[in-house]
């Protein structure tokens, strides 16, 4: 391995631009005193360029190595469960975040769709409305939809829908009443459609 190539790699590692191969090359050569000296010089030069020169000739790597040599080998720490719990927590929060994201996304999408749905409705083709007297304190009645529709009659519908829609509404209400879980409510809905 040529010295120039090693020095280039060293420089790349320092600048955080080394690829994996260069990093390996530097790590392999780091035991070599000459390389360490080069490294140290580069650090000084770099620090000087960035105006952060504090302690020249500080060979942290060898200091750490010496410290490690003195240290007794630590017993295998039982960090297994904590580690996986941590992972689990991270994974769970990612899942929650994803779920929440999906939900938010869907809401956006739907409110968009609903807006789109409301848009033509405002133009008089049909008037969705839902208004009634206040129920419990806490229910907002502020956003009232425009236009009272007398007794639920489909006003302004012509042709095909005039003929078909009442039949569909009636069939839905009657089938719901026949299959109803709550007995009286679907019946009342069906009866309400007949009150025109």
């Amino acid at each position: 391995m040529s010295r120039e190539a090693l020095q280039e790699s060293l420089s790349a590692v320092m600048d955080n631009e080394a690829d994996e191969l260069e990093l390996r090359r530097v790590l392999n050569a780091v035991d070599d005193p000459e390389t360490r000296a080069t490294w140290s010089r580069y650090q000084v030069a770099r620090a000087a360029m960035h105006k952060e020169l504090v302690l020249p000739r500080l060979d942290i790597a060898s200091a750490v190595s010496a410290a490690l040599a003195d240290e007794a080998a630590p017993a295998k720490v039982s960090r297994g469960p904590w580690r996986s719990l941590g992972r689990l927590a991270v994974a769970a929060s990612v899942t929650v975040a994803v779920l929440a994201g999906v939900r938010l996304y869907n809401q956006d999408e739907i409110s968009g769709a609903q807006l789109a749905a409301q848009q033509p409705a405002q133009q008089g083709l049909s008037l969705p409305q839902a208004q009634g007297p206040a129920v419990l304190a806490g229910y907002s009645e502020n956003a009232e939809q425009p236009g009272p529709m007398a007794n639920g009659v489909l006003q302004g519908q012509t042709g095909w829908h005039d003929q078909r829609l009442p039949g569909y509404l009636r069939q839905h209400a009657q089938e719901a009443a026949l299959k109803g879980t709550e007995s009286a409510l679907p019946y009342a809905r069906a009866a309400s459609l007949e009150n025109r």
Partner: protein
Amino acid sequence: MRALPLIPLLLGGWLTVPALAANSSPQASDWLKRLAQAEQQQSYQGTFVYERNGSFSTHDIWHRVQDGKVSERLLQLDGSAQEVVRVDGHTQCVSGALVPGVANTPEAAARVLDPLRLMSWYDLGVAGKSRVADREAVIVTLTPRDQHRYAFELHLDRQTGLPLKSLMLDDGGRLLERFQFTRLDTRDAPSDDQLKASDICKPVAQLTAQAAQPATGWRSDWLPPGFELINSSVRKDPQSKNAVSSLMFDDGLARFSVFVEALDKGTAADIRTQLGPTVAVSRRLTTPKGEMMVTVVGEIPIGTAERIALSMRAQDAQAKK
């Protein structure tokens, strides 16, 4: 071993489901169980009002449980006299015009409220107490988990669990419909005379399993989560002579129907309209068989109905086999 880090991820996803179900209070679920039982066990008679936008009606109800047999008669007190008599969940007679083809099917027996199923799609809660028809009531709320269904507020009788009041609310908290007892008597069971149908009540045909023809030609690419097909039929419309396929779905509480019919002249426009709790959305659909009109009718938000209408597809012949 590469898959190992994925396990917590999968596990995490699985763990969040019971965590969400824990949003529902056990008391609320107990009250809903009592409600389901009350309909099958408690005799009562009373008067209730039903209100949706611009329409207000009053009704009498007689409900008797005798030897495990549930008999019920409902009569509208104002306007035209709408009447229904039912025995064990099967409609015996109705007044007024019944849509041709609507009839009892053998499996039409009463579906009961299932709190466990509802808990997947609604957060159940107890919101306090109230007084309805001079009775103490517990307020149970059903708040939808997604935007595809409405919220309900049920006021259940503390003594019997019967629903004294039921409100349906949209996502903005606006009232869509109100059902409310003004008088309820749970001590005296209705007499035979009170349960007897009047002359205006016309008998309903009981269909056999063979006669009911399911609608197989249509399917939906998308359904709001939790909704299942509970009924499908094909009937011939007496006016247009067209076959009308209808499919009904429910999530254990809310229901909607999908109707598909061929368009003859092709002049109809897409429409959307809302009658209190019930929306109707029509969409044209071009299929190999020609122009069809898909109409979704039900107690669901209009955006959801729109999406369902857009998702209906003709089932091709191969898929049917």
